[in-house]
């Protein structure tokens, strides 16, 4: 039976391990890589090597950074009294792009998911509780995604944080644009009411 030459098979096997990439896409990508200019390939390989070599996770907020602690954690203009909790670093970046938040962050590194074997121990929960006790935190804003897992994680964190004497809030989830208010929409409506803000 014909099989790929070893150098190709190695790349295919490596790519297959990436999320969202199946055997078919891995093969397609490998052929695309073969067609690239040698200089381009070297750049890509170099970028990949430096991706991990030059990055560390910030030991305070657990975001990827080139320095430890990261630029946000060391920025004196950031409000030290509010802490915003996100699932992943890309949520942090999305919030930073709005320019509307001036406090600090904490990256959980995922959400609770018993089906995937993810409990509080697999997330940055203890370090969050520790920070809240050590720093001058007054308010913790939970910004996990509005999914079943995100909701469950937020409730769990709320129950752990409230005894520490801080204010806990959840990022308000409004009504979806164009969503109709009928039948099963009570959940959305109730939450929209609970999370309403002053105008």
């Amino acid at each position: 039976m014909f099989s790929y030459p070893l150098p190709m098979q190695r790349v295919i096997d490596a790519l297959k391990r990436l999320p969202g990439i199946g055997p078919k896409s891995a093969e397609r990508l490998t052929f695309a890589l073969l067609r690239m200019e040698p200089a381009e390939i070297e750049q890509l390989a170099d970028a990949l090597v430096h991706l991990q070599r030059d990055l560390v996770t910030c030991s305070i907020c657990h975001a990827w950074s080139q320095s430890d602690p990261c630029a946000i954690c060391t920025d004196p203009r950031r409000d030290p009294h509010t802490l915003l909790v996100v699932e992943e670093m890309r949520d942090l970046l999305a919030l930073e792009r709005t320019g509307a938040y001036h406090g600090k962050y904490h990256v959980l590194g995922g959400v609770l998911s018993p089906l995937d074997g993810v409990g509080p121990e697999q997330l940055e929960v203890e370090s969050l509780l520790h920070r809240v006790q050590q720093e001058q935190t007054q308010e913790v804003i939970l910004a996990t995604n509005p999914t079943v897992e995100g909701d469950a994680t937020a409730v769990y964190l709320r129950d752990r944080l409230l005894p520490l004497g801080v204010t806990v809030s959840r990022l308000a989830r409004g009504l979806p644009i164009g969503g109709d208010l009928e039948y099963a929409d009570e959940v959305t409506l109730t939450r929209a009411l609970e999370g309403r803000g002053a105008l």
Partner: protein
Amino acid sequence: MRLTRVVLRDFRNWNSLQWQPPPGPLWLVGENGQGKSNLLEAIALPAQLRSIRGATDREMIRFGASQAEIFLAFEEKGEHHEVGLRLQPGGRQMHKDGRPQHKASALVGFLRVVPFQPEDIALVAGPPALRRRWLDVLLSELSQPYLQQRSAYEHALRQRNALLRQGSYKTLAGWDEALSDAGAAVTIARLSVVVQLTGLLQQLYQMLSGEKSQILVRYRSSWLSPSTVPPPFLEARGELQEGLRQTAALERQREVTLVGPQRDDVALLVDGHEGRRHASRGQQRLLALCLRLAEAKLLAERYQDPPILLLDDLYSELDEVRQRRVSAFIQRFEQALMTTTQHAVAEKGTVFFVKSGTLHSLGDG
């Protein structure tokens, strides 16, 4: 709404069909095994996205062919629409008004049909799980938010059950809240439909049977206090949370969630007696038809437009009086496709003959 064009390729025993069905009642007449039910199955597929006979895609592709195609054009309130579905080994391809669709949910509620098959007697005579599933499918067609809440609920339930199996309860409160939010929403939606159904069924059954029987649809839940009107959301959520508290010890032992809409039942009562056990076969069959016609009325109200009826072998067990009443009722729909083996019952409507996967009108000779 009504179908204006039906194109099939390699669907079951339909090699190739190009048909422009007229409005009104349509009769598909033919002997057994000619393809009448197959045709109704094909028309229902782009609407409900699963076979009304519970078949796999592989089973619906014509023997020896590698893929099957269904294309339907229809008119709704004067507007023209199209839906296409291709069944192939790699999965399905869907088109809606010429544009490819990747999510099945994009087609929910687009083309609306109400099927009736002889097997539907199980909706009355069968176990409660069948009625619950029927209600779920109907609600998904009536309301997009329901579809979302139900899948959120099922998701939360799977996560919570995984936690119970793992025997770690630290984060249980988080899942309780996610579960009771979606669970309360799902239940309230079901209750509001059950209330509407009760009235409709009573009316339909009395009209078609000529009997003065009392028909009652009752939603049975172990955790919700019985009531004839759906409770407010916060109340239902509170009761579900209370139900979870009360079963906490037992569910840890059994390692599975013991309360919630996944365990609720829908009962049909005829004069106060469980229709499943006490109604006669004829009553059960008529009641099953009434469930489908009630479904059609709810869809017609929700979309301000009647769905297409697909009635398979409807008259085989009805006596003549009831046949006539049913047929008078069906006249109110813009289009109804009905199958029969007896040409004689095919009155009031256009007749087509089905013979081994081909269709002929009267004029064809």
